[in-house]
């Protein structure tokens, strides 16, 4: 009698564990993960504007070419 009871509980235990595992697997398989809002990846064309950089990184060239802003006398008086 004792042995039959133990066997019964053993079988029930296996069935429950099996059902649990099956549920997990099915659940994962059918779950739909939250949709991640994909930011549009900016398309950056290859850098080709070498001419701009060649001049603007050349301190000597800029010192020769850059023009000082015309300073306009301010007619304003007092703290701004």
């Amino acid at each position, binding site marked *: 009698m004792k042995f039959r009871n133990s066997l019964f509980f053993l079988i029930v235990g296996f069935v429950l564990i099996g059902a649990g595992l099956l549920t997990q697997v099915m659940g994962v398989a059918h779950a739909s993960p939250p949709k991640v809002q994909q930011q549009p990846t900016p398309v950056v064309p290859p850098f080709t504007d070498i*001419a701009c950089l060649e001049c*603007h*990184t050349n301190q000597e060239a800029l010192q020769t070419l*850059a023009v000082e802003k015309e300073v306009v006398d301010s007619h304003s008086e007092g*703290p701004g």
Partner: protein
Amino acid sequence: MAAWERVWIDADMYSQDLHSLINCTQCHGGQAVDDMTIAHTDMIDRPAKNPETCGACHTDVTPASLNSLHSTLAGYDTVLYARSVPENHPALEEAEANHCNSCHTTCGDCHISQPYSVGGGLLDGHAYVQTPPMSQTCTACHGSRVKNEYFGLNEGFPSDVHFRERMSCSDCHTADEIHGVGITADHRYDGEQKPNCEDCHQDQIGVGSGIEQHEIHGTEILSCQSCHSVEYTNCVNCHLSKTDEGTPYYTVESHNMGFYLARNALRSAERPYRFVTVRHVPIDIDSFSFYGDNLLPNFNNLPTWAYATPHNIQRNTPQTESCEACHGNNDIFLTIDKVAPAEREANASIIVDQAPPLPDGYVPATAVETEVPTDNSTDFWGGGGDTTPTPEPPTDFWGGGGSDTPTPEVTPEATPDNFWGG
């Protein structure tokens, strides 16, 4: 900044910047050719003026930034329209366009270059600067008041204690605040206090702080600046005009240093204080008369002494010297005699009749030490029934026993331990 420095790209710095992957002409227009004239034809010197330039990638911050006060300058409209009527708005907008709108800031004005309104020029060789440098950006625009106060450039007045602790603007003013993220405000003091002293000083505020003056005054009587700032700049009567050549200019009639406490015109849950520091703003009923007659017909709708948060905070100030420094001292309160007659109606709601008196039963500290039991503090500060007989106050203000010697002036010594807040 020399002309060449304004446009010099630091190859080492810029090459580390992700933005260097983008073609120059994509943001700046023009053409990438060797001929300088052709290269610069149709060039856009401030590409960030176009919201798409930064907004195409920086979607988290650009939309908010475009609606922030830094970008819209809506604070001007708020205070001018409140004093005007809709039919005058076009004339006021013309005046703003000529005199105010150059202060619009774009993303690039802080993160790439100095603001255009102060002459521009690349900050760090065109590299993107995550936290804009205080002197070249923030105080370059906020100069005449904030900068002078914070750096201690007003002669005779100390720099802000936070400056002395090497704190910069962005240590208190967060990126979200500056970019207007989560903020819908139509003027500087609209909505939640940002920054809030309490964010850092949470243990030192109000009842429970253990600081005697904070325990006494709580959190709803005085703004922090009321006790912890010193004199600041007040400007009077700015008038706008144009030269014969059409160059706009302004004239501020006068400016002076002063410190005044007045009733809080912006009293709210966020700013519950009864008294706050107020600064005279340079508005006058005729400020815009160059652009039309009577453009501010509702001039009296707003005070000319405006809610202010001076940037010269000290731990110890003349106000913290003694109770009498404020109580009974009309000199630091905006009483009617300090308000120009033409502005009294505009300021009626904030003018203080007279300085709050000392509490009933108050006895100067020197007398308390010698004559009053030490356990009557509840009654002393007006918190309960006055069952203890109050001794007569000394005949002399300073407890000197009523000698004929003139009372010494209440001038704090300029030592680090008191006035300067060291």
